[in-house]
């Protein structure tokens, strides 16, 4: 569950198991983002531009593995993701509500 947010962070995670952080201001490639992660602050160098409200990886995530935010599974990586990369629809897919996958399976 979300708790109070400390001032001065560029991004934050919500749970200590999270592999992604939500950025609180527009960040650019090469910026060092200070991320509130639990009780500590960690820094990550951005490999891409990431807009306010979007997510960055705070750790490497291998293709096919689940991605966590709020300490819960929000999807699965469709590509290798490096720490500092933008995490969004281009490299993460949903697992639930996938009628398209059901339809593909039925065609086989």
């Amino acid at each position, binding site marked *: 569950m979300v708790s109070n947010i400390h*001032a001065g962070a560029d991004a934050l995670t919500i749970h200590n198991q999270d592999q992604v952080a939500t950025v609180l201001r527009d960040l650019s490639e090469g910026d060092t983002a200070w991320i509130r992660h639990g009780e500590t602050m960690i820094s990550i160098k951005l490999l891409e531009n990431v807009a306010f409200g979007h997510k960055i990886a705070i750790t490497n995530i291998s293709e096919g593995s689940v991605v966590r935010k709020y300490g819960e599974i929000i999807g699965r990586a469709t590509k290798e993701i490096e720490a500092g990369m933008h995490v969004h629809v281009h490299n993460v897919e949903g697992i639930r509500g996938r*009628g*398209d996958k059901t*339809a593909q399976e039925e065609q086989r």
Partner: protein
Amino acid sequence: MKTIPAYMRPNGDIGIRNHLLIIPTVICSNQVCNRIMQSVPDTVAIPHQHGCSQIGADKDRTFDVLAGTGKNPNVGGVIIISLGCEVVDPKRLADEIRKTGKPVEWFDIQSVGGSVKAIGHGIEIAKRMKAELDKLTKTDVPLSKLKIGVKCGGSDATSGLASNPALGEAADRLVAEGGGIVIGETTEIIGAEHVLAERCASETTKEKLFHIVDRFEKEVDRMGADMRGGNPSPGNIAGGLTTIEEKSLGCISKCGTAPIEGVIEYAERIPEHGLYFMDSPGNDIECVSGMAAGGAHIVCFTTGLGTPTGAAVVPVIKITGNPSTFRHMEDNMDVDVSDILSGSFSLSEAGARIWQEIMEVAGGKLTKAEILGHQEFSINRIGPSL
């Protein structure tokens, strides 16, 4: 005992508004209802697309939403206008709403003799009923009788981080005061239902919660499409939300932390006290209309991207955690909780700000949506048109 000023209805319900509602039983009556609303100030019509060529549970759902909207305690009196040959029975609808003890009148356009005569006849009735409603005065009633719907729409990443958890603080406070909270949007707990299930007060409720999510997901399977793009919507995705799971996990905090006492059907009457889940679509207007038909007095609505929506018979309080949305769409936004994100504002302070707004709106302060005349209304369908 904490109290709020409200209208006491004959059946013991309390209303924080005193609307004269004009209900078309069918799309064919919409224009007549709209003309009457335009002619008699402070009346509300609820034009809709349904009421005919419907069968079974789909027909019942349309009836239940119309009846529930009429029974909503913010409504003081009701005029029902039928075409005369449709599926929704106006007499049965009038009888159902009359169970609340409030005045209900109905007529059909075919019997009266066409639109012009129907509009004239309706204006006469509306003027007379409005004069009677205006005589009612508010009295102090227990705060514990208040029921609030919690909803999010036009979400972005700030919804899950700021506005939803802040609304959750206010929801917890109402439950602690003995009031009722209803959360809906079955689609938007997909991927988060296991978290809510842990909070269900009974095994039956837990099973029902899993059942309604499963039922919905099977519908998505039947459509053969990925939910993404429909929900999360293109705007949600632009705002940083990647999957339905992520959106859902951000959504659920808006109902606070109380136990879930039960799962109720779309438009079913919301029980008096505690937190309930209404099986309903994520679609903003359909969901809010279902909550209003269930008897909610107010809907608290969080948004990241911003939306103007209101509702026909309930005030909709718009809350945002996105600072640029509050500035950019201030004429649609009621409460700004974006200071949470800069760290200068705690969640409990944000919850207190929302609570203050709820108390003021319950006391009669108009929401931005009410000031601008937003009276959106929409009925969820579960069957084909015949």
